[in-house]
């Protein structure tokens, strides 16, 4: 499954903002880490703000703050703000059986994707990120370069 760049950015931004309770980060700070422009990220943050997941804090040291509940907000909640994740329309019952069978198979894939995204909360993602970070700290670093832009992630 491929998610749009805006969706991935939104998930990354929310993960950054929930690294510590009450953390505020500017779009420039988040954008630097993922190699994206502040302009693109600002649009993403605007959508997250409209959904009540983040708020902008003005003034010196301002930025964005996560105001949702990390234990209740799932990846599906974030992803649905940016893309249509509705299931494949069931085939018309009058159509050829090939069409209906393919529709069932695609529906199965959609169901699994929905269930996966809908069962992983931001809090769970943070745990997974931390676990990976700890695991990577124990392993010798591979000789790979850091991604230069969001398109490479």
């Amino acid at each position: 499954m491929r998610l749009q760049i805006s969706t991935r950015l939104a998930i990354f931004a929310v993960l950054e903002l929930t690294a510590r309770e009450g953390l505020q980060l500017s779009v420039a700070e988040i954008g630097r880490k993922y190699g994206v422009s502040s302009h693109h990220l600002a649009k993403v943050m605007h959508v997250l703000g409209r959904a009540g997941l983040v708020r902008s804090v003005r003034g010196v040291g301002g930025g964005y703050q996560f105001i949702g509940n990390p234990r209740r907000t799932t990846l599906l909640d974030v992803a649905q703000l940016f893309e249509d994740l509705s299931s494949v329309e069931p085939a018309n019952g009058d159509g050829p059986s090939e069409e209906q069978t393919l529709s069932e198979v695609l529906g199965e894939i959609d169901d699994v994707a929905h269930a996966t995204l809908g069962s992983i909360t931001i809090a769970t993602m943070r745990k997974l990120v931390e676990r990976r970070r700890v695991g990577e700290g124990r392993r010798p670093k591979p000789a790979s370069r850091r991604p230069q832009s969001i398109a490479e992630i």
Partner: protein
Amino acid sequence: MKETKTTASSAVRVRRVRAADIPQVIALDARVTKLAKAGYWNDIFRRYGRQRSEERFFLVAESRVDRSAAALLGFIIGEVRAWEFGSTPCGWVFALSVEPKMRLHGVGSALFEAISDEFRKAGVDKMRTMVARDGHLPMLFFRGEGMIAGPYIQLEKDLD
């Protein structure tokens, strides 16, 4: 396993099931599933509460604070399964229930940690379970405990 053990959640004590717990297990399950299955639970107790205790674990959670109430807060059941479908031995959890009004108080996590410890002691390093895709609450719980999709896919067929 020691008769009782303290878990990460300090208000919850997890221990092996006793015969006297079974009426509460039956009642809790009936409240949650809306199905009374006394025969099933008595059979599960006979098989998982009394036999092969080194690889079968029927654990219950109770309050450490209010022991006078003697209320069962939840239970978890699992066993070490070996070589099914080519799997190396792993811990398999097939039942978990928490008193609805005690959810989000660490009872499920305490039970999960306790059975994880038992599986580790039994020598397995992988734990598995099966959850309905639309079972939002158990999916969130098991994911929150760090479980991820495994290499097996559950398949089924209508028997016409």
